[in-house]
């Protein structure tokens, strides 16, 4: 297929049809779907759930966090308000989103027995692990399966006969708080991802891939695909002319304004501060992030996209997010934004931004100002999450010198025999992203 002929809508539809066909009519017990950022994973999960329900097959859905479960319940309710849905929740306080209480078709309970007979029941993997059944569910959908640990799947796999496993292999891997080296290389290593174990034991399962990112613009998909998905490439669903970010107020010539213009034009912007070793909550970098956000709002941004061609929508606070590596950095940015009178802009760590989408993201580079580069900061998934949340533009704030820092810390990762290599090295991926960003650099001395 040549670039000219590539019809993203048709390619995505073909992939979705094949997935649904294998799910509804296939003979294998499982189907695995890799979904790059913004490729329509949730849409797929909701559609598969509705079709399974339509076919009269009782279904359980496993997600990893309560927020993810609640989000899926709301999406299901929106698509089909007549479908009775069960939300199984823990007995903690605030166990689920109170918005569910307003939906008459949603029944909530902390006991699985109360939800018997409903066509769809949703909960977290942690809660499902406590459920016991006499008759397994005919079908399950496991969402964010790459973020689920193998031992977590072990606890719930007995509850269902067949499963659709959906997830993004490029985001943060699950982790254990104690060493698990002694099981490395085992097909059922409890600390590995659920999908790794599943495929090791069932290599013949059909594996699909959603080939098109509808979120990432044409300016971002090639880099994200090359740097983080080198063996499973994907493309953007939109062309270079489909998305436009414009600002009513012209640039005042400051660093933040210049980097905003660069990012509006090219999709990427690097606001580079002078090289300096700093603690994590580098006050200058934090203030720079806040200043960029303030200017994004002040300059009357408008985003035009394929959803409404010719109709620019205002770039409001809820369409902007700030991403950091650490919680204390997020807290510092929130405080700096409050000082500038900015509210309603999401500020969170990579872990919490997984699966979310914004028009513009401002990222404090995980290695900015660091005197050292640890495995945590080099983790491929962390950078991948931060660099793939935006529909229009991503602005990275960083101190100069990260390239040299990477050179000082060549990768010396240990290697466990028998484990699969699925992803590029964090060191390598960081270099790739840095190389791309350096073409959109705006130097600034605040």
């Amino acid at each position, binding site marked *: 297929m040549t670039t000219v002929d590539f019809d993203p809508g048709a390619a995505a539809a073909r992939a979705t049809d094949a997935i649904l066909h294998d799910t509804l009519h296939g003979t294998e017990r499982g189907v695995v779907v890799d979904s790059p950022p913004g490729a329509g994973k949730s849409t797929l999960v909701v559609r598969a759930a509705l079709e399974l329900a339509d076919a009269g097959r009782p279904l359980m859905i496993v997600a990893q966090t309560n927020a993810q479960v609640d989000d899926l319940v709301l999406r299901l309710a929106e698509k089909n308000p007549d479908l009775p849905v069960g939300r199984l929740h823990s007995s903690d306080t605030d166990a689920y989103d109170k918005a569910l209480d307003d939906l008459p078709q949603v029944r909530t309970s902390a006991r699985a027995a109360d939800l018997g007979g409903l066509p769809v029941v949703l909960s977290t993997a942690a809660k499902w692990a406590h459920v016991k059944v006499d008759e397994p569910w005919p079908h399950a959908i496991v969402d964010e399966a790459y973020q689920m640990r193998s031992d977590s*799947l072990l606890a719930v796999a007995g509850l269902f006969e067949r499963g659709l496993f959906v997830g993004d292999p490029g985001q943060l891997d699950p982790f254990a708080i*104690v060493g698990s080296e002694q099981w490395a290389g085992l097909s059922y290593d409890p600390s590995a991802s659920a999908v790794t174990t599943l495929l090791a034991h069932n290599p013949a399962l059909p594996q699909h891939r959603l080939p098109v990112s509808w979120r990432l613009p044409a300016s971002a998909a090639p880099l994200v695909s090359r740097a983080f998905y080198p063996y499973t490439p994907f493309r953007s669903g939109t062309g270079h002319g489909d998305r436009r970010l414009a600002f009513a107020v012209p640039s005042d010539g400051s660093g933040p304004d210049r980097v905003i213009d660069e990012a509006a034009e090219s999709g990427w912007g690097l606001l580079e501060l002078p090289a300096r070793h700093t603690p994590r909550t580098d006050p200058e970098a934090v203030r720079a992030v806040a200043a960029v956000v303030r200017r994004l709002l002040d300059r009357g941004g408008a985003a035009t996209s394929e959803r409404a061609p010719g109709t620019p929508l205002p770039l409001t606070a809820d369409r902007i997010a700030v991403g950091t590596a650490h919680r*204390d950095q997020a807290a510092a940015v929130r405080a700096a934004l409050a000082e500038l009178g900015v509210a309603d802009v999401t500020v969170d760590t990579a872990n919490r931004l997984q699966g979310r989408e914004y028009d513009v993201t401002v990222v404090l580079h995980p290695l900015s100002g660091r005197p050292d580069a640890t495995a945590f900061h080099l983790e491929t998934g962390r950078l991948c999450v931060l660099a793939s949340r935006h529909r229009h533009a991503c602005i990275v704030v960083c101190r100069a010198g990260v390239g040299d820092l990477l050179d000082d810390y060549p990768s010396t990762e240990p290697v466990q025999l028998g484990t699969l290599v699925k992803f590029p090295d964090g060191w390598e991926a960081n270099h790739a992203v840095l190389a791309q960003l350096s073409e959109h650099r705006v130097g600034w001395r605040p």
Partner: protein
Amino acid sequence: MSLITTLARLEAVSSGRAQPTATVRHRHLSERPLVFVPLTTAGEAGAPLGALVGTDRDAPRLLVVPQPRDRDLRFSFLADLADTVLPYLDSHAESVEAAERTETDPETGKRVKVEVELCADAPQLIVPSRAGLDLVRLLGRSMRFRRTAEQDPEAPHPAPPRIPLLGRWLTHYGERSRVPGSALLLALTDVLSRHWATGQSGLEDQHLGALLAWIDPPDGTRGDEAARGAELARDAAGQLLCPPAGPATDPAFDNKLLAPAIERYDRARTALAAAEDALAADDRLAALTAAEREVRDLVESRTRPTWDAVWRGLDLLRALPQGAHAEERWTRDRWSFTGHRDRVLAGEPPQPRRDDAVTAANKLAAREREQARLEAQEALDDPLVMAGRRLAGEAFAGEVTDVVLAYSEGKRPSPRPLVTVRTDDRPHLAERARVYRSLGGKPQSAELVGQEAEGVLVLRVLDRMGRGREPEPGSVPEKGDRLCFTLFEHEQRGGAKLPDPQDTPWTHGGPPGEPAPEAPDTVTEEDVL
């Protein structure tokens, strides 16, 4: 690493002496531990060269393999080791107390209490460093599948039953040492560096001699100088003055002293075998004994300093008062010991080479739970550890400035007093976050209601105030109290129950089937090169 520990390390650099990172001892120490100081031969997996082992600091037992490549000599070393270690283990297996355990009744499926035995104390093994832990595991692995003559009369090198038995025990101890907070098998360098920060890196702390030099330098010297001496100083012949704690030996020792001695031993043995008459044999036996003596002396000269250092390290640790929760964790160790004793008695086969899916997942879950438990307990037991959690925003200490009695809504209102706390700490508190304080050893929870001003927090106390309308005396904080609240829970919830191994689901390979007895390791002639 917490900034508090970093500061302690830097102060150690500046003062030339290790600084405390704990104010109590966070591991139980047995009255009578068994110390094991092994050496191995370079280049081969788990080939022992010798060891000092025993419970009497003044009278260790020396075990030596004069030719490490000789399998028979190696096996007799292991048999001797079993003769020393097993009686020590057995002495603890016999003394028991009655205890209760909750089990699932196989018929009704209900949780019921059953009366069981719990060993009154457990044997404790101490090795010098982390590499020693690995060797314990490796020895366990190499011994537990050995076949006895009874199991297999055809076995080429039948082992006495105590060898596979010791292998199973060492395997159990090796696995247990991976459980956070356990103390059945301890590496002394790990325990010492848990309690003191030196002015060197964690990697260098694995050198027992250097670590002790930082913590307790000889009179009139600085710790840093003494540590450098312990690490590097050599005599005129190029030998280290403070031999490494093992199990690996210094290459200079191997090449200059050990190899020639082993060669002389080999020659003496060949000569003895070639002796043609009794008189010659007598002479040559004497020569062989002398050659063996020489290897033994060399091994003792390289293990004795470490042996003494281990006991000195134990003395230093014993001088610290034991942390309040260490005993509770030791009770878990006693359960672990008792459980393995029962499995051995029940005639269960040795631990398999690799865990099955369910066992691996259960172990990981248990260790994560123990890690969380350990972190919470160490903080509760030790103000210096709690200081690190406070700095990290995971706990806060402050003074109660106001208490307002309030009640829950509903038919039977319960007390829900509002407590205002003033703190200089900066906890990472989300809206309605739960916090906990220790009340008579039990956690009392509260939730954040709001923040009145910078550092002034209003909390609503939620439990442990009794059943009545009025809170029980002493259960509600009072104005002027100095309290410490944590954002982490003090006790760990049990995890979900995993399926039994025979119900392993299809995603994890399905049921493993009947366990086949593990085959013994292949023995190759090439073991003797």
